[in-house]
């Protein structure tokens, strides 16, 4: 509120906003304390620690540590594989998000039109969500194993030589499919619920005006479910960034030639395989900035196109 506004107007402002005014300090502090403490303990303190640690090169046992200033960041950013892993992460996240959202929407639209048996159909579609990422990884790994895999055998019969162990593109495809697969169920649930809440009267009115199915879908249904789609976009990007670790670890371990090493996987492999906690912390800080920016962009620009 601007300074030139008088006390009278402030009173009005408050009345309109229905704010509660506390008399003392104690109660409001007590009320916000849980949130503040949780944020401080689980976010600000560890974030501060990560930033602090990123300025040092410690030895694995914590016996000594050297201050290197921005040395860890210089080391990282001068590594062309690290710079490439930004691109890998972007490609991977976009593909996982698209591959998990578009089929889910398509299935939800079909399920929404079903009259009989939609319960069975829904249940079957939700099942894959119950499979843990690492287990899903192993499942896909077996199907596509270059020597004993069922799918790779059929591909071989068709004359296609599947080898994700050496071919980076195939490896990326496999981890994307394995990551997106279980996620389709989750997205399906949300899309299905959103579709059910689209008012029938609007659709019927459009139908009477002669709009065919896809015209109705793109003109009416899709705009009405954008809040859900936006929510899923944010959640799926976060998922692709952080939770696909198990799948990548089991299927490719980041290979071949780092073609599936996403940023989070590198934090793990440098910190817990390489014992290089300095570099690992610096990567955490960089990732923190990246996800922060990404979320700001999503809320600032993408959300403008969402109609609540």
């Amino acid at each position, binding site marked *: 509120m601007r300074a030139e506004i008088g006390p009278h107007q402030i009173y009005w402002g408050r009345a309109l906003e229905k704010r509660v005014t506390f008399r003392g300090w104690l109660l409001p502090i007590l009320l916000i304390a849980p949130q503040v403490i949780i944020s401080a303990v689980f976010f600000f303190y560890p974030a501060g620690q990560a930033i602090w640690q990123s300025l040092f090169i410690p030895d*694995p046992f*914590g016996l000594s540590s050297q201050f290197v200033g921005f040395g860890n960041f210089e080391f990282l950013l001068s590594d062309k594989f690290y710079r490439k892993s930004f691109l890998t992460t972007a490609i991977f996240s976009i593909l996982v998000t698209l591959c998990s959202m578009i089929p889910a929407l398509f299935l939800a639209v079909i399920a929404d039109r079903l009259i009989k048996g939609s319960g069975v159909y829904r249940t079957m579609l939700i099942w894959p969500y119950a499979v843990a990422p690492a287990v899903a990884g192993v499942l896909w790994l077996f199907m596509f194993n270059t020597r004993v895999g069922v799918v790779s055998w059929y591909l071989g019969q068709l004359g296609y030589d599947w080898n994700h162990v050496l071919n980076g593109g195939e490896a990326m495809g496999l981890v994307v499919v394995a990551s997106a697969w279980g996620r389709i169920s989750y997205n399906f649930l949300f899309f299905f619920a959103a579709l059910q809440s689209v008012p029938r009267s609007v659709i019927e009115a459009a139908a009477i005006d002669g709009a065919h199915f896809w015209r109705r879908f793109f003109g009416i249904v899709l705009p009405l479910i954008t809040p859900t789609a936006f929510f899923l976009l944010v*959640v799926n990007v976060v998922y692709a960034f952080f939770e696909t670790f*198990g799948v990548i670890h089991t299927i490719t371990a980041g*290979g071949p030639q780092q073609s599936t090493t996403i940023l989070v996987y590198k934090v793990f492999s440098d910190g817990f395989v390489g014992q290089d906690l300095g570099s690992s912390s610096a990567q955490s800080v960089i990732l923190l900035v990246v996800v922060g920016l990404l979320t700001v962009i999503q809320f600032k620009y993408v959300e403008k196109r969402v109609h609540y």
Partner: protein
Amino acid sequence: MSFRFITSCYANSTICTLALWIGGAKLGISNSCCQFNTRTETISHLKDAREETMKKLLIGAIAGSTLLSPIAAMAQTEVQFWHAFTGRLGELVAAQVEEFNASQSDYVVVQSHKGNYSETLNAGIAAFRAQEQPHILMVFEVGTATMMAAEGAIRPVYEVMGESGATFDPDAYIGAVKGYYTSTDGDMLSLPFNSSTPVLWVNRNAFEAAGVDPDMDLSTWENVGAALDALKAGGEDCPLVTAWQSWIHLENFSAYHDVPFASKDNGFSGLDTELMLNGPAQIAHLTAMQEWAQDGKFIYTGRRNEGGANFRAGECALFTESSAGYAGISSEAEFDFDVRPLPYWKAVADEPQNTIIGGASLWVMAGHDAEEYKGAGEFLSFLSSSDVQASWHQNTGYLPITAEAGEATKAAGFYEANPGTDIAVMQMTANEPTANSKGLRLGSFDQIRGIIDEELEAIWSGDKSPQEAMDSAKERGDALLRRFEQANG
């Protein structure tokens, strides 16, 4: 469990917290990102803490029962032993521990499995940071440099065993085995536990099916090359597979041909070492391997021992794999197989030097009482004894760590009953190790192997020439070595 560890763990998962905080708070998402941190690290340490509590309760209970029963003996000194073995190997370790505990009454060794090699090392490091480290920790050979650099965290084995009063004769151990784990002064820093070395496995039936004589000389890569041509011509789909490509085709290759893998005696004489794996000998070998890969004579299956499944199923004719593959191959293979020495290039070396080992050794960690170290020393002496070693060697296919155990095995007629099991021992002990064949001592070696694996994959797929790939591996690996030097210098 100390608070310090919690913070270091959180520091790495901070980023997830942020994502939730920004992305999640507004939408009310409940998410569990970065589970890997918490799952693999924190939880295992919560478990340690729990075990610690259990232990204290148990000690309490023992103390209580001592009060009740005056005849009970005094509490034994406990020695914690963390290892990475499950399954059959885990059972054998447990049996060794039981045998030791039953053999005397002063000490009791408590063994616990802490996950795979990397996880066990991580558990040990995290426990040390929390000041709850075990007395004895199993560390795989690539973690050797990390342990050696951590002088304040370990106690050299020669010291512990010497002080324990148990018999300790450093000369009893096989040079090529202990060399990997001794300092440049010749002091044994950790006790070799399970050691193996790569050999060539031959599927005789596959040779016969392709019309190739299975008894042909396969001692040189030149001959193996000819065999691969003949096998391919005879209709064999998978003439050659390998396990552990970096270990066999670069690390052991270099030692076997007496060329350096890294400067400063393969890292033994200084942290300022640089990789030398892009030398002419290595490039010549990789060039031949690349041609075989392009012609479908060498089939690449993965970085670890994935090829083992194919070989054991009888799909492949030749297999370069650890001698410790014996147990699996002999129990699963439904074909006649041979064990041959690892081939060498006649064009590079007239005679092969010796191969180096892979596997793990036992490290004694710092920060315990003198009495407990005595127990640890006793246990390590027990493990080194001839009987224990001989039965370990015969049961697992791992190399014996003392010459005496090897002789006892021979005397018992084991090698005659199981032909080929002595190849590894002979290959290791044929020559006195040189500076190039003593072993490797490189920091961040687990990660460097990952880099080498990536570059080798680029060679097999034809994306890079062997020279380009190895130059790149050197450049990337050296950057990690410099960081390790900086952190530990």
